[in-house]
């Protein structure tokens, strides 16, 4: 007894869960975290490049926003990252750790590319577009359903399963990239001429951006106001509660993963038909993983995700400008992204918990 007491009183502080935090306090903590992260990034950059930190951030801004073309590039990249983030969000809300978005995007892109190659000349453009969308959505959904099926049936670990599926998809796409390359086997990916998304108002990427904007609004409404969105939150909070109130958990898991994969398929479709007009094994470019961080940082809120994906794309573009100007390796942007994410992840602790210092009198 006395030993227990001693152990308890020895601690100088203890951690208490906050009941609720006003939204502005939470945002102040997040802003402080980002500022701190920027200071650390500044120190790292100065240490490596002998720039002064203010100059560094100006260079970054130039790299991301310097010209109209760069701005469009920034928005387009944000849109694609946002699209993948929207895709993984329903699954995460359900606490189904789908880290297979990379693969699902690639499979969607593969389906799109296959349509563009084999049906491109045969079908009229509107019909071709329709077929492309449908195949990419369906194949993305099917690819995502495989781990979901085994999860619901045999309770296999979905994190590991979806992770492995990524690399299967990457190799399949690498195979077809080589098979379809022109000339065959050369490795230069074929430019897909038929079925490219139309250029709206002279802006190549506008249609991508509009599609993702619509998806964002739909996702917001779906998650927040629909019955299915509600079911997802209940399953995520507690499977037992969900079962108790009569939700068919297996059905919800399968349906949500299908949706997740389908939206990834759309992202693949946009990347192949709208952005790149070609297919490579790095078409998804790690977005499947970055999206997880985007979604999580935005607390699964599609509207906040616009901000978080913009932040990450901005950092990546800005940092690659710095590495270009100072002829450093382009991976510099990954370091900056990593540091910022560490800080934001860390700041969540201070939003959810507070540290209470035990007063001295209590000890006696």
């Amino acid at each position, binding site marked *: 007894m006395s030993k227990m007491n001693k152990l308890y009183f020895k601690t100088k502080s203890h951690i208490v869960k906050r009941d609720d935090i006003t939204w502005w306090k939470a945002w102040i903590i997040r802003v402080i975290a980002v500022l701190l992260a920027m200071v650390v990034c500044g120190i790292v950059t100065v240490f490596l490049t002998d720039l002064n930190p203010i100059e560094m951030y100006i260079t970054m801004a130039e790299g991301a926003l310097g010209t109209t073309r760069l701005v469009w590039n920034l928005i387009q990249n944000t849109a694609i990252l946002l699209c993948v983030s929207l895709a993984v969000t329903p699954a995460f809300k359900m606490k189904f750790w789908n880290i297979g978005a990379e693969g699902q995007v690639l499979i969607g892109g593969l389906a799109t590319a296959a349509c563009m190659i084999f049906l491109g000349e045969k079908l009229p453009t509107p019909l071709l577009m329709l077929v492309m969308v449908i195949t990419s959505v369906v194949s993305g959904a099917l690819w995502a359903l495989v781990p979901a099926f085994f999860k619901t049936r045999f309770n*296999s670990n979905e994190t*590991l399963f979806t992770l492995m599926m990524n*690399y299967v998809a990457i190799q399949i796409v690498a195979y077809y990239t*080589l098979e379809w390359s022109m000339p065959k086997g050369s490795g230069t990916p074929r430019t897909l001429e038929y079925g490219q998304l139309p250029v709206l108002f002279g802006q190549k990427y506008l249609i991508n951006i509009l599609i993702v904007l619509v998806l964002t609004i739909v996702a917001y409404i779906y998650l927040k106001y629909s019955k299915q969105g509600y079911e997802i939150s209940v399953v995520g909070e507690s499977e037992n509660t969900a079962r108790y109130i009569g939700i068919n958990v297996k059905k919800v898991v399968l349906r949500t993963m299908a949706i997740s994969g389908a939206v990834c398929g759309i992202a693949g479709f946009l990347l192949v038909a709208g952005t790149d007009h070609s297919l490579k094994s790095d078409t998804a470019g790690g977005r499947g993983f970055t999206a997880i961080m985007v979604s999580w940082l935005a607390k699964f809120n599609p509207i906040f995700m616009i901000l978080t994906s913009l932040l990450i794309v901005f950092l990546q573009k800005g940092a690659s400008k710095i590495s270009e100007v100072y002829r450093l*390796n382009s991976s510099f942007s*990954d*370091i900056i992204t990593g540091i910022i994410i560490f800080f934001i992840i860390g700041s969540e602790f201070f939003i959810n918990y507070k540290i209470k210092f035990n007063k001295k009198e209590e000890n006696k």
Partner: protein
Amino acid sequence: MIATIIQRAVMQGTPLLFGSTGEILTEKSGHLNLGIPGIMYVGAISGVAGAFLYEQSLASPELLNPILAVLIPLLCSLVGSTLMGLIYCFLTVTLRANQNVTGLALTTFGIGVGNFFGGSLIKLVDSDVPSIALSATSNAFKTELPFAHSLGWFGEIFFSYGFLVYVAIIVAIIASFILNKTRIGLHLRAVGENPATADAAGINVTRYKYITTSIGSAIAGLGGLYYVMDYANGVWSNNGFGDRGWLSIALVIFSVWRPSLSILGSILFGFLYVIPTYIPNITVSDKKLFEMLPYVVTIIVLIITSMRNKKENQPPAALGLPYFREER
């Protein structure tokens, strides 16, 4: 020919063995560390940086002291990857952050650090060498046993490797022993299976998580060091390490969380890696399909273990779940 294939399979498998042993230890404490690929990059580049600075500080390569040439990179690598492990621990254990998100961020960061310093190290230290080629250091790492080549195929298969290959196997055996035969291992498994119970039994959960994750990261980092110093002959190439980090995580599942099994598993994975080169008339694209095999095999193992549902072949029950004492 068969001896050569086995030899190459072992060499391919060694980085995976280091990675998976490290990840198994980490996962046994209930932490799914998806930062392993990043940690392995950092382990590799820290060793490279150490060796590079050491070689640069010498007037001529002949002055290289083989013992220092091994010790400096080894130490740098261990420090680098342990630091990465500590970042992960601090965020997930102390700050209670989500493990998957933290791990993926760590991988982004680690691969970034590896490629950045790999590509910019020369410029950063104002050196005039054209590329990072640490052949002297690499030779020290690759020193084989003196009688390796006098024993024919037997020596080729068993003795023709640099010392890190044996370290990998010994570490895996020690890890297996500690996990299954010692009190520390029992406590560790308790932490991974049910941290609340372990806590109630008086086990310091936080300490166990910190220590095993750090040690696990250090071990995984050695895989990166082995790859660059021994396998790649001391030549750093960006992204040269490839997806071996993820393969290590696959190997963890394949060997159903047993370091002893992952010794064999790593050789099998290495075998799958090298076999396409020995198939006559194989096209480049078919090679890509072969590279898919380890992952497909892993998925099949994952499915079978979950179907058979045997208790001893399951992931640690609390894998990926956060543990907060106050929220039980």
